[in-house]
Structures are given as C-alpha cells and as structure tokens.
C-alpha cells in the first residue's frame, strides 16, 4: 500500500517535472520553432501552423515594464511593427504575465493598449498560463523571436544591443530584429542569431 502510494507519487512527480525539464533547453536556433495555439485578444484561435510561408515575429511584452516602455515610448516598437507587417510579416505580441501579475491584461485592455500606443501587431496573444512562454523559454520583456516561413527559428534574444530602460539609447541602438528580418526578406542567412535577452523578467505564475 505504502509502496504503491509512493510509486504513484513518484510517477506523478516525474510527469509534472518532465515537460519542464524538456523545455528548459529552450528552442534551438536553425531548428523547427515550437508550435503553439492560443487565443488572441479578439477571441480568435491563432496557431503557428496557420502562417506557413510567412515570416513570424514573436514579441514578449508587459506594458508596465520600464524596458518595454522605452521601446513603445520612443515609438521604436510601433515603427518596427508597422514596417514589417506592411511587408507581409506576421507579428504576434505575446503576454505571458499570470493573472494578477504586472502586465496581465484583459482582452479589452490589450486591444485598448494596442490602440493607445498606435501599435500594429497582427495579433496579441494572451498566454496567461505561460505555455508559449515556457515552450520558447522566454525570460524577459521585451524578448524577440523570428521564425521563417518554413517554421525555422532564426533569431532569439533581445530587441537591440542597448540593455537599458533609457529612451536616449534608442538613437544609438542596433536593432537585432530589424536586421534579422531584413536578412530573411533578402533570403540571406541571419548574421546575429542569438543575443542575451534583457529587460524585466516575465511575470509567470510562481
């Protein structure tokens, strides 16, 4: 009896920890990006598979994070979204804040934020359970991923090379995502494929 209970317990523990252990490695550059399916702020279901043939950008965000505020306050993120969605890129903004945590918003608030900030993502995904965030091993806001039309992950990391919350640094920053998207659009190999993501930690459920 005791043995059976503890075996069940061990099995359950293994089940619970396994997926986490598998994810800890995170997505691999130049390999298939993890697939996902989520509900966006308009209530629609969005899957990575829907966008075969299109370049996809994943942007992790938290509107109250000072580093995100820098990107939006300086109109940098909006500019990038506009430039690339107009060029046919699919831009998915992902919010992985757990309910009650900083950055967690209702679908209505997510749409209001998009409108207020003059942002133009293709969709805003509400990843309240942190499933996509953990599948991609996303750690900070703003953290970025670029996935090609074939579903290959070609960039992961920071938005640019100035890990600060200082608006002035936007002027001198080298934007990694813009560079990667430009190279993908020209069918070239991405030169900077990874960088250390900077910013606020993503407020996953503890």
């Amino acid at each position, binding site marked *: 009896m005791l043995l059976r209970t503890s075996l069940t317990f061990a099995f359950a523990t293994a089940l619970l920890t396994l997926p986490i252990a598998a994810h800890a490695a995170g*997505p691999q*550059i130049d390999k298939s990006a993890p697939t996902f399916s989520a509900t966006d702020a308009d209530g629609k279901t969005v899957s990575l598979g829907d966008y075969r043939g299109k370049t996809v950008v994943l942007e992790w965000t938290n509107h109250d994070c*000072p580093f995100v505020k820098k990107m939006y306050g300086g*109109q940098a993120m909006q500019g990038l979204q506009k430039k690339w969605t107009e060029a046919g890129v699919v831009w998915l903004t992902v919010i992985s804040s757990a309910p009650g945590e900083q950055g967690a918003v209702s679908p209505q608030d997510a749409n209001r934020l998009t409108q207020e900030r003059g942002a133009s993502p293709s969709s805003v995904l509400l990843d309240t359970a942190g499933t996509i965030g953990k599948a991609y091993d996303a750690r900070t806001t703003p953290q970025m991923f670029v996935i090609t039309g074939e579903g290959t992950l070609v960039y992961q990391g920071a938005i640019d090379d100035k890990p600060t919350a200082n608006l002035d640094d936007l002027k001198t920053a080298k934007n990694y995502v813009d560079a990667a998207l430009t190279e993908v659009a020209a069918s070239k190999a991405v030169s900077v494929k990874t960088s250390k993501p900077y910013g606020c930690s993503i407020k996953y*459920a503890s």
Partner: protein
Amino acid sequence: MIRLFALLLLASAGIGSASAQGLKLPADLVKASLVAEPGAIRAGEPFTIGIRMVIRPHWHVYWRNPGDSGLPPEMAWSLPQGFSAGPIEWPTPSRIPVSHLLNFGFENEVVLLTQVTPSADLAPGRPVTLSGKLSYLVCERECVPGSADLKLSVPVAPEGSSAAPNPQNRALFASARDRLPTPSPWPSRLTRDGERLVVNLDAPGLKPDAINNAAFFPYAETAIEHAAEQRLSVDETGLRLSLSRSTYDDKVPTELPGVLTFDEVTPEGAQSRSYALGQAPPIQPAASVTAEATPVPAPQAAEPDLTLWSAAGLAFLGGIILNLMPCVFPVLSIKVLSLVRHSGEPPARVRLHGLAYTLGVLAMFLGLASVLIALKGAGAAIGWGYQLQSPLVVASLAYLLFAMGLSLSGVFHLGGGVAGIGDGLTRKPGLQGSFFTGVLATVVATPCTAPFMGSTVGFALTQPAGVALIVFASLGLGLALPFLVLTTWPAAVRRLPRPGAWMDTLKGAFAFPLYATVAWLIWVLAQQVGSTGLLAALVGLVLVGFAAWTWDKAQHAAPVGSIVGRGVAVAALVALAVLTVGLDRDRAEANVTMAAGSEAFTQNRLDTLLAQGKPVFVNMTAAWCITCQINERTALRTDAVQTALKTRGVTYLKGDWTNQNPEITRLLEQHGRNGVPLYLLYAGGKAPVVLPQILTQGAVLAALDTLPASERSAALKATPKR
C-alpha cells in the same frame, strides 16, 4: 502650545513621508550614499570609497551578471581634476529566484567598493567633493529604474600626517570586504560533459560530507542556464559542479571565470566560502553612462523671460496675496489682534515679534523646499503640491485647521485663557510664540501655495538648489510682509481699533473660513482614499472635536477630574493618530471623474494623437487645486468651449495629478512647471501653446480659433494643389 507643536510635527512628518506611501519611487526603494574609508585623503594616495545601497525589504539590485533579467548598477563618476576611479569590486551575490527564472543580485544592503586615486598635486587643507551619478534597476517582481546623484566631501590631510581610516566607517568597510570573494587557494579547470559544463576545483583537502549549498556565478552572461540545477559532487580529489550550458552561446567556452560559493562544515561551525575563479573580465558599460535612467528632456521654460529676479519678484507678490487666502487670513488676523494687545509694549519689543514671525515663516518655507529639493535630487518624480498627494498630510491639515476653528469658536481654550490656539501662541510672552505663528501660517498656507504659485515654484524647482531657495525665501518674505510692516512701524499698529468685545465676535466669524477649508480638504481626501478611509478621516474629525471638548472640561475641573479629562483627551489624540496612519492603506485607485468629451491623459495616447496629426488640448489638474477647479467650471466645461473643441476635432485629454503620477510630472517639467494647472494646445505639429494658469472662456476660444475649422479643411490642405 505643546499640543499644537505636536500637530505641526504630525503634519510635517506626513509631508516627509509623502512619497513613501504606497508609491514605487526609486528613491524610496534604494537609499544610496557614498562613504569614504579614510577620515582624510592625501595627494596621490589611493583610498577606498563605498557606494552604499540600502534596499527596501524584498526588493533587489543586481550583480555584474544579473542572471536571467535585470541590469547591474552603474556609477558615472565626476571627480576633481587629476582624480581617477577604478572598477567596482563586486561582492558575492545571492541567487534570487523569480518564478522559474533566476537573478543574481543583492537584497537589503550592498556596499560596492571602488578604489579612487587622488591627483598627485592635491593641495592639503581644502576638502574635495567626489560626486557621481548612480544608475540602477531595482526589482521585486516589478522593476523600477532609478538614479541618484551622489556627493561626498572629503577632507584633505595636512602635510606630514597620515591618511588614517575613519573609525566610524570601520565596521562598514570590514563587512563589505567580508562579502568580497577571495582568490581560490586551489587551481580550477573547466571540463565538458556532453551539453554540460563542469567547474572542477582541485581541492583534495575538502571532506565530501562537509560541503553543501554550492553555487557558481559566472561573469559571462550567456554561458550557462542560470536557473538550471547545479549538480555538486565532492570526492578526495576535489569538488565538481556541473552546470547546464546555455543555448544562447554557440561556442563552447574553454574557461569560465566566476565566483564559486559553498558552505563548509568545520569544527568551528559552518563557514561560508566564496572564491573567485579565474580573471574577471572588465565590465562593458551597458549604455551612455552619463545619461539619466529616466529620460527627462531639458525643461523648456514656458515663460522664457522668467529670470531669477522676476521669479523672486512674482513669488514675493504671491506671498503677499497668500495673506488673503481663506486658510491663512484667520490665523494672521488673530495675530494682528494680539498685536492690538501688544500695542502697550515698547516698539522695540513689538519689532522683535515681527522678526520672530518672519523667521518662523522663512524657516518653514525653506524647510519644505529643502525636503522637496532633496526628494527630487534623489530621483523622485514629484512637484510642488506634492505634500497634498499624501492622504496623511491632507487629513493632518484638516485636523489642524478644524482644531483651530474649534478654538476660534470657543469650544476649547489653551491654558485656561480666553483665547484659542492661534491666540494661545501669541499670548506666549516669549518670542517663540511669534515664531510658531509664522511656522503655522506657512503650514496652513500650503494648500493655497500649490494652486496659486504654480509657475514661479515650477521655475524654482528646475533651477539649482540655491536659486530655488531664493525663490522660496521670497515667497516667505511676501507672506510675512504685512505683519512685518505693522510691527516695524508701531504707528501703524496704533491705527488699529482698540481691543473690545468686537474681537470675540470677529474670532467666532473667522472660524468659518477655516471650516470651509476643512470641508475642501475632506473633499480632496475623498478623491484619494476609499470610502473606508473617508469614514476614518471623518471619525478623526469627531475625535478632534471630542479631544478639544474634554481638554476644555479638564481645564475647569477639580484636580482629579482634570487629570482624567486630560487623559481622555490624550487618548482621543492617540486614537486619532492610529486612525490617520491607517488612512493610507485605503488608497483609492486613480479615479479621475471624466466629464463627457474628455479622455484620461497618458503620454502614449498623446504621442499617438500627435503622430496622427490631430490637435489635442491637454488639461493637467488635481482635486486639491482650486484654480484648476475654477478654470474647469468657468472656462472649460462651458458649452461654447466644448462645442468649439468638437467642431475643430480637438481631443481633450485630462491628466489627474491628485495622486502621484510621474508621467504627468514629466510633462509639467517639460514646460517649466512643477505644479498644476497646466493647459496645452497642440496643433499643426508645432510646439504646444501654453495657456495661462487663470483661464477665461474668451482666452480658450481665442486659442481654439487659431486652429483650422475642422478636419475637413485639414484634409483639404493635405491634398496637393495644382
């Protein structure tokens, strides 16, 4: 008298903590300062300086490698000619988990040691000032970027004497050095184990079962998975710690410098070890070191002609006008009434009273200004009127004014005399009575200074501290002037009517402006706290009344009754204090009551509208700002203005500064203001037009008339003409 002083203390304590209540300002989260190790320094002789950061419990700042998120603190030194500062010597960090991620940083307190070398030709005698700007990110689960201008004056030792350590700082530096990792006594190597990296410490002396809690902190930020398990094994050849390699770096490192920590059980007890393995690479500054953490554009003064002297002049005039404010006039009148009584005193003595009063006013104004300047210097985004952003201060002021009103109404008397509080002060034969009337006048004037003195005070606060203090002093002198004049020319006093029964009637009448001010303060409070808080504040008023009444009864009671009465009154005041402190816990959410046709201001919304080329009218207001309320009633909410806004397609953004709002503070500062109201009209992509602080419907309409009549004409303009 003592009680009054206690009330004043209560009020000013509230002012001091205004920014600490429920607000996440970097200066409240991190108290940063500089500490020098020697008592005096000598030419060319290096010494150690500590950047001390005292951190709010549960919050943390970061190590040089911050882990999965965060930023290390950075110090941009501005040192005297010929001085140089070395790199920060980083103490051993802690592992700080956030959800499934991990940060490396410091909690509670950290001292970052740095070696400074003075110039070789430093002349002894005059002290030198070492300063710098510390930028940091402080996080709990949320993150707040902050910066602090740090300054330290260090004496220069006379020739022939040695630069001895300052004994006061010995403990601080000793404990800071204790926290530094020491060079490893054993060689270390890095080996690979599949996708794992193994740190090997060839330490044959370690007992396998005596080692636990091992952790490795690499200097490189993308070498390992920070949050992954670090597997420890110890045998007779040494210690191994197996780490999960990060996927961020393609290259497999051949060496991994960093800090290794573990606990070792020894016969003397558990010892914490911290060893530096390998050479620490120099740290790359993350960004423009000199730039501020929170960008504040250089203030463009709205009134460019506002020079120091005109600002001082305006402040002086404003101070004179303050005498007529409903919160000040009664207090002042009582003081003048007491002068009538003094008129038997020798003129020299009366003059001294005038000077003491002026001194009281100046002391309080300069005190308030210093607190404000210090808070701003520490990086807080606050402005004038900040006192009223704390419900504690608003409630304390309401109680103080209510108590004064009660004394004027004759509910209670101090010292058994016929006069109330205001008079209780002046009846004091000593000059401190006059001094405290000055202090009191300033305290009760604060609700009125904020709304009426916006632009001058705003100018003052964007200037260096010296200029700011001059402007504040002028304001104080203006407030003190009428009384000073009356006392300096005793002839003027003799002109005043003789004392008589009319004085009591006047006093009774003067109670009502005070009650009116109380009513207004409670209304302000109602915007700041929830309904529970409001009830607490109203019960507080009842307690003030009860304390006043029992105190008065006690004055006239037999000895025993007197003690009981005073005891009850004191108990009531203690209950009041407890209740008031509780107020702050019931903070209302920012509940701007949005009139139809207006939207809540956010910088984002403004930027978006401007980017779309739409005209925008911005109104920065606060519940406690009377001017703002009057302007809204008479000039903004009128049908004519609302229609004009609509027909011209102007978006009306309203910002509420009743509670702290750094975004609004920043916009105010950009226009050389440090208080509300501020009215801006943006149109045609040009710099906004700043409307006067006292608005008329005509002025608003005239400003709107300069805009094109509708979006239609804007659209026409956009079509190319052929």
